[in-house]
């Protein structure tokens, strides 16, 4: 056990920091500028780092990936784009795709020349994703896709989508799903922004009416879609382990700065014993998240797969984020709810979960998303209970029968 960073990692961190100082844009005004920044990161070797070299990546260690993301969080660097493409679609194609698919799609994912979204969730298939109903009908050399997707992150700017659709309604639901690459620019695809409780629209709804998918754009074989979606994929696994904590820590520091101006019961709020207890607890929880991140990185560095352990991490930090933002709101009072007209001394100027500078109000509202997306806390607890603790599965009515 040695929790110091190696001299190699310290040197690497320094190189990344210097590079960011020299290359980081101060403001990103539109998608084109974000793509240009993305491209610059890629060319410097700081994006898609975990991808195998033969597909344009660096084959970098998880710690190196974590350090780059961490330094970006520290510097308040704008986020790159196409994160689902780089994080999920690309790795899926690398593992399950044909050579032709790899040649056609991979590089343009890394360079953000083609933007990707993930067409998974549906109005009636959220936590129970395998209940999805969007149908893909075999028309000989192509499929016709009909149905509706929801919670499609980045759908409005996506050129392509990784689609899960039902190809066989006669078999049990997990067996009748197939995975496709679908062109988003076609008449049968209608993308509508979904306005969230934040007032913004990071997600979309996607309606497909006889949308066409070529046979050559099927990933894996018919009926393998569920298995493909279940594989823990991704090369960007060092990912945001450290960056997330650094973002929380800078938010915490800004909260302390703001709190210095506030009073409670006639005294500075930071002298208030109740507030101090709450601040102490959240800082302890934040540190525990950091220790946990170091543990995860150690496993990844040793080539071990956390597997269902990832559910513990996700459950822990997403629930933490809610508690943290609730405390921030308690301390800031109505200042914490301002979406406009925020006095400068109460502004939050660190990246929120989606990589934008934002207000406390926005960060607070966003914290409600973390315990729902990518498997709600309840789903994570089921996974932990079944796969780590070995508790029996509940009796379920949906395992055996056909979907129609």
């Amino acid at each position: 056990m040695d929790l110091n960073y190696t001299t190699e990692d310290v040197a690497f961190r320094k190189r990344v920091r210097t590079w960011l100082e020299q290359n980081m844009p101060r403001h990103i005004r539109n998608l084109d500028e974000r793509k240009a920044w993305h491209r610059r990161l890629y060319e410097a070797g700081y994006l898609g780092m975990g991808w195998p070299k033969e597909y344009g990546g660096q084959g970098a260690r998880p710690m190196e990936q974590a350090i780059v993301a961490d330094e970006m969080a520290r510097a308040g660097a704008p986020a790159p784009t196409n994160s689902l493409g780089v994080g999920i679609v690309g790795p899926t194609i690398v593992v399950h795709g044909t050579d032709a698919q790899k040649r056609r799609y991979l590089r343009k994912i890394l360079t953000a020349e083609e933007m990707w979204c993930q067409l998974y969730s549906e109005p009636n298939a959220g936590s129970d994703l395998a209940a999805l109903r969007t149908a893909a009908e075999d028309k000989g050399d192509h499929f016709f896709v009909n149905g509706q997707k929801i919670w499609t992150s980045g759908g409005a700017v996506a050129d392509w989508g990784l689609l899960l659709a039902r190809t066989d309604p006669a078999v049990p639901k997990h067996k009748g799903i197939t995975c496709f690459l679908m062109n988003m620019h076609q008449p049968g695809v209608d993308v509508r922004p979904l306005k969230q409780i934040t007032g913004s629209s990071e997600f979309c709804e996607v309606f497909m009416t006889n949308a066409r998918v070529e046979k050559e754009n099927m990933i894996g074989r018919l009926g393998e879609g569920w298995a493909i979606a279940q594989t823990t994929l991704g090369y960007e696994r060092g990912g945001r382990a450290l960056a997330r904590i650094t973002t929380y820590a800078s938010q915490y520091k800004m909260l302390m700065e703001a709190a210095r101006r506030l009073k409670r019961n006639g005294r500075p709020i930071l002298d208030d014993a109740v507030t101090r207890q709450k601040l102490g607890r959240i800082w302890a929880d934040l540190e525990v998240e950091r220790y946990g991140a170091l543990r995860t990185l150690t496993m990844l560095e040793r080539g071990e797969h956390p597997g269902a352990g990832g559910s513990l991490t996700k459950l822990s930090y997403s629930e933490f984020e809610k508690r943290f933002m609730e405390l921030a709101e308690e301390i800031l009072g109505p200042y914490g709810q301002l979406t406009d007209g925020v006095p400068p001394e109460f502004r939050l100027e660190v990246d929120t979960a989606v990589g934008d500078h934002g207000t406390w109000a926005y960060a607070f509202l966003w914290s409600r998303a973390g315990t729902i997306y990518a498997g709600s806390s309840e789903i994570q607890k089921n996974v932990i209970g079944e796969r780590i603790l070995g508790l029996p599965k509940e009796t379920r009515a949906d395992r055996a029968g056909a979907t129609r």
Partner: protein
Amino acid sequence: MNFSFSDDQVLLKNSVRAALDEQCKPAHVRAMMEDSRGYGDGLWSEMAKLGWLGLPFAEEYGGAGLGLVELCLVEEELGRAAYPGPYFASVVLGGLGLALGGSPAQKEKWLSAVASGSARLSAALVEESLDWDPASTRTTATRAGDGFTLTGVKRFVPWAHVADALLVPARAPEGLSLFLVAPGAPGVSLRPMVGIDLANRWSEMRLEGTPVKADAVVGQPGGAGPLLESLLRRAAVCASAEMLGAARRSLDMSVEYAKVREQFGQPIGSFQAIRHRCAEMLMAAENAHAAVYYAAWALNAGAEDAAMAASVCKSYVSEAARQVCGDAIQVHGGIGFTWEYDLHLYFKRAKALEPLYGDAEYHRELIARQVVA
């Protein structure tokens, strides 16, 4: 960066677990709960033989020269077994106290004896007010010739009734000082304080004009503050390791029980109400693990954030262990509330250590001082 145990550390953990599974079964714990002295010579000499009693001391004092991470591995297993005896008092409180601040002569005399099991130490770190800040010490040390006389009342002194010497903080003319006191010295009286964890023993210790010689001072007169703070951090982290062990045992028992206990025609573990609770218990235990071993490493390595890590650890684990051990009783239902079932041994161990060496709120205030500054 490597946050995992070495092969040697895993070996140590496994051998401690195996020895305790054999020699510290619940039946042994229960027997010692009824025993007037409270611990068994057999297990004690086995601990000496296996090198656990000298684990953190230098080899010249008969120790193994290992660090706090290894000590916490042992403590975690002791908590898992609800071990009854003065290991923590002797090795952590007394032993580490002397190892940190004792003179070569004091170390020579006591650490070798602690390591061989022939002597037991403890420390009297809190008084009536329950303030864990050493600066709150009110016991006095008055100059008397070369030495001092001590007067005051200490509370919750672990295993004082079997100790050969105790570390006693007192306020001397020079300032806060630390003394080695024999419980049989004139003016010392002990009164048992019986808590809910009967496998642990505490005493009230009264000192009324107790004479101590000059060579009984640990460190310099007036210089005990930093030493005591350093010792308390180690005590807090080792106690956390013991609470973590109690929590792990409670979780394991709950999961096993939830697999076999049937109600409504199904194992109760198939119900989300139970499964989700178990998942939350595991999350708390894993986070507690990270908190304990990060802090142990940081203190051992003298890392910049060592003091912070110790407070993070004690504040987090105090509540996590309370939660996990309490949830375990809830998962078990009625049987978890019976004396006969072993679950309460671990619940009580965690509860007993929760307020000692600073409870969660005490350490959260220490954290707040660092982050507000």
